[in-house]
């Protein structure tokens, strides 16, 4: 799938009305709401964000299975990429996961002690796994990218060793949905159960796009940078 689906001359308000899910991207890129009739280009410029980069993210978010080709990656300014990825990590860890956990605690009140223990333990281990995965990226991968972007040779890491673990992270969320859907005793399937499933589906979808950005944008982009800066 290719082609740019959005035009930066279009009004930002129209874009967000058509694809409300994109407010998440606005938030992570520090693009404030209240943009009146300004175009996408104008809103981005006002906040020092590249409209091309913003639209690349919009394409990935709204078109399932979309991956940019090499040419588009090369011509898109990527200064905002690492900050964006860091923001998304914070969004999962500081906002979404605590929210899900809160609901799970409510559900657990309706379960026997042994079952609630094992359910909450599942989630605690999951959170730990997410935290470790993100920490690896934030401490090793992102600083490497930032050094390359400043034109510094950096041999501490190679993007070839980028370990993709999001698949596993998505699997576990999907397991949690299955357990709540199919296997919880009836008395525990309260409104909280519905809320938590809804929440998880949203996070799963977001996490899926997050891995597309890392695999299909970050990895090829950094490969290219490594070649340019380190000459191989």
């Amino acid at each position, binding site marked *: 799938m290719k082609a740019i689906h959005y035009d930066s001359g279009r009004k930002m308000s129209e874009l967000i009305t058509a694809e409300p899910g994109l407010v998440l991207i606005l938030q992570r890129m520090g693009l404030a709401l209240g943009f009146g009739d300004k175009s996408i280009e104008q809103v981005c410029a006002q906040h020092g964000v590249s409209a091309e980069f913003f639209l690349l993210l919009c394409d990935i978010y709204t078109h399932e299975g979309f991956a940019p080709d090499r040419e588009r990656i090369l011509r898109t300014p990527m200064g905002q990429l690492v900050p964006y990825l860091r923001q998304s990590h914070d969004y999962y860890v500081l906002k979404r996961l605590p929210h899900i956990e809160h609901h799970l605690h409510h559900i657990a009140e309706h379960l026997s002690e*042994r*079952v609630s*223990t*094992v*359910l909450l333990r*599942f989630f605690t*281990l*999951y959170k730990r796994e997410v935290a470790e995965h993100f920490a690896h990226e934030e401490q090793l991968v992102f600083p490497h990218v930032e050094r390359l972007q400043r034109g510094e040779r950096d041999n501490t890491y190679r993007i070839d060793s980028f370990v993709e673990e999001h698949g*596993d992270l998505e*699997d*576990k969320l*999907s*397991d*949690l949905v*299955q*357990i709540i859907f*199919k*296997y*919880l005793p009836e008395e525990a399937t309260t409104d909280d159960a519905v809320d938590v499933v809804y929440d998880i589906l949203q996070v799963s979808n977001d996490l899926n796009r997050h891995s597309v950005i890392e695999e299909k944008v970050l990895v090829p982009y950094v490969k290219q940078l490594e070649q340019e800066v380190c000459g191989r």
Partner: protein
Amino acid sequence: MKTRVLIIEPSEVVVAGMCTLLHEVSRFKVLEPVRDIRDAAQRVIASRPDVVLLNPTLVENLTDVLGDRHLPVVALVYQYVEQLKLRRYDGVVDIRESRGTIAETLIAATTAAANPAQPDGDTPAGYELSARETAVLVLVAKGLTNKEIAEQLHVSPHTVMSHRKNIVHKTGIRSVAGLTVYAMLHNLIDESTLI
């Protein structure tokens, strides 16, 4: 109606053995086997099998044989094949396995393909775990590896793999941690067995 099985395998001995074995199971109709992989795509179209039993070392991509058809394909294994490759199959049959196990794997693969996971609540009988699968599930939940489970149950690691695949298909749960929760919810294990 009988389940039509198409064997794609170059070795005459293996083909003959497999045919003999499957002929004894009345629910199978064994189609004329394919010995040359180059004929495979053509024969899949012509003979309309319900399940294909294929030596995984013969092909890189299943689409080379299947085209755009959706058919269950079971790997026929008698030498080392990477696990990664086997994951693309709907089941794994090791020629050293018993007739019963081989038949079970073929039937499971065919049934699974005929009844793709339904999101609604009613659970057809085919979604209940078998006694063997339950045994495997309990050991998985306890944190044992495939190899350890195989040793404990006296079956091949391939059989364990195929049970695990069925468990994932039937429960909809992929991770070990998730299966542990499932096992607890169904009173198959208790806290003391958790590590």
